[in-house]
């Protein structure tokens, strides 16, 4: 028999019992819909998790530190030096050895300037950022580490420096009584009484453009902060500030720098990338040496950092970038085997992943149960169909129909029920998913800027139907979708429903095959 003929007979037979076929297909539709929607909710959770993780920064970064060295404290006191003699040292040799590890893209030591520094900019240094954080990294690893420039270019000379993305907002105006400019960090909003809505804050212009404004750093071994700022914030600090300035030996180092670029903020690659200054390691070592010189005779406690400016520097921490997220655990275990402490977001990522997988399994299980019920429906329909058509099957066999063809015929019927149910179910779940997303977005959009999505810019109140529809279909950076159906889920749903149909049609089909031709010949009917 040709397959076209089998298909034609199969359609005829399905149409013969319209209501029964319809009800069975309906069962499959419901089952397919529930499994697709359940998985899509799981996918929605996944999407939100991923967004959350990306907002946390570059997840492929592993931070390496020694047992003694604190996390970002940047001190190599006597206690820690004895500790590091037991464990591995974080020096240039170690950095080189990290580079040769498998799955490592880039390695850079990270130094934080261990002195209080004030940055000044503008005419006469009117803009002041007291206690600015300065980070030293290996600029040759800049690209490999995944650092990105928002503007400008990398520094090439020692008097050149990079600004953190938001560092300009940290400056105060000493001529305007310490006025500041604020940066709206997403999410935040101000209640507007006129409209009765919370309107998202808008960024104010910073005082100056870092790329065109020269910076001056002021520091010293005993430097405690800018006198203006000390006075401005007064209180107990003023006393300390006055003693600092009156102690006489307040030798300061002043360094003129040129900002060549603005680095994109990423907390995972150093706080200074967002609210600080980033300079080359070599330049920082030179700066430290210079500052140390100012306090050489002053205090012995300040001499201990001097050792860290020599070529055999023990770094506070080293950042290692894995070539891929999947390499992170591997790289971490290699580093741990070398005797270092590591930290990364891998644990968080993993636990989030496990959690969402568990949720997906539960949701998928619920969906699977309803599809199983539908499958039993298919089996029931096919069993009925076979027993109704016993005589016809006998006739076909008597007339020389191959057993194989009869089996294929019944399997095709069962598979067709599954396929049709699967297709309609997938289409229906697409609509339901769309509706859920749109209602969800509308609710989120109506109740303030966006609680779940991260800052939907200016589109607070004007959520038209079409923007909702577009966002619900394609998603987006600032869109929270509760139900996400990837293309493979549709394919999977249709295939799965068809296979379920075939599987549960197999028994009845075999039953049909075993009906003897003799049944048709008998006259006693």
């Amino acid at each position, binding site marked *: 028999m040709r397959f076209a*003929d089998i298909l034609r007979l199969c359609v005829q037979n399905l149409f013969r019992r319209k209501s029964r076929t319809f009800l069975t297909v309906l069962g499959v539709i419901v089952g397919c819909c529930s499994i697709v929607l359940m998985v899509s909710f799981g996918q929605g959770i996944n999407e939100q998790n991923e967004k959350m993780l990306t907002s946390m920064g570059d997840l492929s970064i592993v931070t390496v530190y020694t047992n003694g060295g604190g996390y970002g404290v940047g001190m190599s006191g006597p206690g820690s030096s004895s500790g590091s003699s037991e464990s591995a040292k974080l020096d240039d040799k170690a950095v080189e050895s990290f580079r040769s590890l498998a799955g490592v893209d880039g390695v850079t030591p990270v130094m934080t300037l261990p002195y209080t520094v004030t940055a000044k900019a503008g005419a006469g240094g009117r803009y002041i950022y007291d206690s600015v954080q300065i980070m030293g990294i290996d600029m040759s690893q800049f690209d490999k580490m995944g650092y990105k420039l928002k503007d400008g270019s990398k520094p090439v000379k020692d008097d050149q420096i990079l600004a953190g993305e938001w560092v300009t907002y940290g400056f105060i105006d000493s001529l305007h009584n310490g006025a500041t400019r604020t940066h709206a960090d997403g999410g935040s909003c101000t209640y507007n009484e006129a409209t009765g809505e919370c309107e998202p804050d808008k960024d104010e212009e910073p005082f100056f453009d870092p790329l065109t404004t020269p910076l001056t750093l002021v520091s010293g071994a005993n430097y405690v902060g800018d006198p203006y700022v000390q006075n401005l914030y007064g209180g107990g600090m003023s006393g300390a500030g006055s003693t600092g300035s009156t102690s006489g030996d307040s030798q300061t180092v002043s360094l003129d720098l040129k900002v060549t670029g603005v680095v994109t903020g990423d907390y995972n690659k150093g706080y200074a990338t967002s609210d600080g200054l980033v300079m080359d390691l070599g330049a920082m070592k030179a700066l430290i040496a210079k500052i140390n010189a100012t306090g050489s005779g002053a205090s012995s406690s300040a001499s201990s950092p001097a050792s860290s400016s020599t070529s055999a520097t023990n770094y506070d921490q080293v950042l290692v970038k894995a070539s891929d997220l999947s390499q992170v655990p591997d790289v971490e275990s290699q580093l741990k085997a070398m005797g270092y402490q590591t930290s990364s977001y891998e644990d968080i990522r993993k636990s989030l992943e496990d959690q969402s997988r568990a949720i997906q399994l539960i949701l998928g299980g619920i969906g699977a149960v309803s599809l199983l019920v539908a499958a039993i429906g298919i089996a029931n329909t096919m069993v009925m169909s076979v027993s109704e058509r016993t005589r016809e099957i006998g006739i076909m066999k*008597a*007339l020389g129909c191959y*057993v194989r063809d009869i089996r294929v015929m019944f399997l095709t019927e069962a598979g067709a029920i599954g396929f049709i149910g699967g297709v309609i179910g997938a289409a229906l779940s697409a609509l339901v998913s769309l509706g859920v997303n749109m209602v969800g977005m509308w609710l989120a959009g109506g109740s303030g800027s966006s609680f779940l999505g991260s800052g939907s810019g200016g589109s607070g109140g004007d959520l038209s139907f079409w923007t909702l529809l577009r966002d619900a279909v394609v998603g987006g950076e600032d869109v929270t979708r509760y139900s996400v159906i990837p293309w493979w889920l549709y394919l999977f749903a249709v295939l799965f429903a068809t296979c379920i149909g075939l599987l549960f049609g197999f028994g009845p089909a075999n039953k049909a095959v075993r009906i003897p031709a*003799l049944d048709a*010949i008998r*006259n006693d009917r």
Partner: protein
Amino acid sequence: MIEVRHLRKEYPTADETVVALEDVNLSIPRGQICCIYGESGSGKSTLLNQLAGMEKPTRGGVRIGGVVVSRLDERELAAFRQRHLGFVFQSYNLMPNLNAVENVAMPLMFRGVPKEKREAVARGILRRVGLGKRLTHYPTQMSGGQQQRVGIARAFVAKPEVVFADEPTGNLDSKTKLDVMEMICSFARDLDQTIVLVTHDDNMARYADRIVTLLDGRVVDDRLTGN
């Protein structure tokens, strides 16, 4: 064409074994219209089932055109039926969801003949049995005589060498019976086909070239009618 040798068929029941056929020997040449005649329970239907390979014999064998039917497996049997055998049933046994043309074309469909070709053949043979105006009617829309004519058309559509007819007129009125028998015989003569006709009706048996009478599973009479 058909050779039956020492055929024996038993049906084991709970307390005794019923012997339906006992040492039947029969030889039907090509082109002969052979009537197997007997009262009900004489074993004539069992013999037909044996000849058509519907059941395996207890002993002995059936050979059609050199092929030992009783030794074929299910698949070979299906292929053999497609090529060499046709059936006319007492209760017509048409497929209720297929119309006249589709019913007649069914044996050709099993062979894999394309739809247009097989339905053209089916339409031709339906016109010959006088159903040219009922080609697209469904079995429920036709009388018993019309249904049986569709059944006959179906049995002959593939031009089989042997056609088995099991009480083909059993459910028909006396006038239609004659039409149906005429039709079967005319097809058989045209194509030089062998017909095995099972009946308990004397009037029908008269159409045959030869009448084999069965009684209690044995051949008790075997004579040519001189047609």
